[in-house]
């Protein structure tokens, strides 16, 4: 140890230039916020906004109490909704798994041709909301449950595919190396070294997507794709507010239950 050396007492995590840049970035952000606020409020009619509490109270008072007697009529569409979510998730997973293996850099058979195709499928599926998928599918295959199931499945491909292919790319390569060193073929390597590593993530992704799909499928009826959304729309159309409240409460209850189930399932597999 050298003693009696004069050390500086000033230390900053960033050099002054960088600090100045950070400060400017913040300034820009605040300026942007102020500008956006102005644009946003330009076309607002303030008379309506000041009226808002009264309007909300009005609708609110018409919505309570919920019409409990409506509940039995809702159970069948609710069952349809759960079926749309579950079958849609399963269909989505079945289609997403091969796409994920084609998209992952370390498993794709051809990085030049097949990988971009798989990535495009994932992006296309993710960029279109399930409500829009349902709108298209109702036009193509007609209204009903099937349209809802296919819509949910198509939307799920991108989500499941993306998370799964990222999981495949992050596996431990030493295990893969060890299995290929035994003289195993590439499908055997997939089966023995890659699949065991991604199984927990795979199940977690599937359950998570199922949970999201329950929420998404409640709304699909709005465009005629079956389920509880149909009831919601018809109730809103005739201004039957107590029924709307009943439906919203039921959806809330279902989502809470599905959240609880998926949390349990995820904890069980990891």
């Amino acid at each position, binding site marked *: 140890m050298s003693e009696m050396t004069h050390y500086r007492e000033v230390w900053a995590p960033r050099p002054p230039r960088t600090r100045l840049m950070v400060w400017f970035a913040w300034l820009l952000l605040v300026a942007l916020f102020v500008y956006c606020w102005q644009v946003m409020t330009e076309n607002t009619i303030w008379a309506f906004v000041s009226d808002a509490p009264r309007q909300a109270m009005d609708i609110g008072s018409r919505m309570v109490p919920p019409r409990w007697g409506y509940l039995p009529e809702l159970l069948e569409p609710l069952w349809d909704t759960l079926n749309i979510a579950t079958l849609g998730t399963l269909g989505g997973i079945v289609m997403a798994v091969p796409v994920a293996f084609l998209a992952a850099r370390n498993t794709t058979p051809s990085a030049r041709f097949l990988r971009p195709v798989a990535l495009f499928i994932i992006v296309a599926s993710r960029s279109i909301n399930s409500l829009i998928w349902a709108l298209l599918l109702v036009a193509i295959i007609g209204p009903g449950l099937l349209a809802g199931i296919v819509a949910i499945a198509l939307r799920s491909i991108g989500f499941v595919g993306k998370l799964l292919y990222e999981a495949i790319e992050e596996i431990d390569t030493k295990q893969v190396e*060890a299995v290929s060193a035994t*003289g*195993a073929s590439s499908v*055997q390597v997939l089966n*023995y*070294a890659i699949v065991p*590593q991604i199984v927990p993530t795979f199940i977690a992704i599937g359950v998570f997507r199922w949970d999201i799909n329950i929420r998404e499928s409640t709304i699909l009826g709005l465009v005629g794709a079956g389920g509880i959304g149909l009831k919601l729309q018809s109730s809103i159309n005739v201004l039957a507010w107590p029924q709307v409240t009943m439906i919203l409460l039921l959806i809330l209850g279902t989502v809470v239950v599905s959240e609880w189930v998926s949390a349990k399932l995820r904890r069980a597999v990891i």
Partner: protein
Amino acid sequence: MLQIDSLSKTYRTGDKALTDISLSVPKGQIVGLIGPSGAGKSTLIRCINRLVEPTEGRILLGDSDLARLGKRPLRRQRRRIGMIFQEYALVERLTVMENVLSGRLGYVPFWRSCLRRFEPHDVRRAYALLDRVGLLQHADKRADALSGGQRQRVGIARALAQEPELLLVDEPTASLDPKTSRQIMRLLTEICAERKLPAIVNIHDVPLACQFVQRVVGLSAGKVVFDGDPSTLDETALSTIYGADDWHAMQQESRDDDEAESALRLVGVGT
């Protein structure tokens, strides 16, 4: 028997990892490959079973030149070469038995391996190997439930399940404590002697190597700079391999290890 002729490896980045290596390993001989980090020990071992593609040279195992094989024949030849890894490289989420049986993958069709329906004689051999490495009662545990020394023994059983004609061993003891390291080296040398297996063992720990191997090959900057009996590995030889300063430090370290081991033995701690 393994014969390597003027093997060279240049990485795509332009780094020359191996230059003109020639080496021949007769049946039943255990070769310790020593050298500083970055000398090319791992690359050399991996070139032999083509986990790393060699740039030039020939690698003869029996009659076939491993350096020039296509995909399918390479897989066939890889079955003859067992490999043991530094951090065990077991498939953590599979059971011990599945890991050992994965040594048979090159011999069984896909449907058998996928359904885990291995042939009776493969299963019997896997049990026998687990018994040999002392893990018979752990067969159905998941690999990640075992300790380091136990995992390395599973790694050894997996390599032996291939019924190899050559063992490649990459830093078998680097993640193990001194006592377990010795146990693993002892097990490896015994097994090689039983089966007349030649082996190339990559190893950092020079005193440990000298204790267990019959021949030492020293690599430095991708070249063979020493090749001989462990007893002839004197200070001059070590200086050519590692540079002058390091040797004393290493001797000291080995003495510390010995002390640690005897201390452990005194208080009766061990795996």
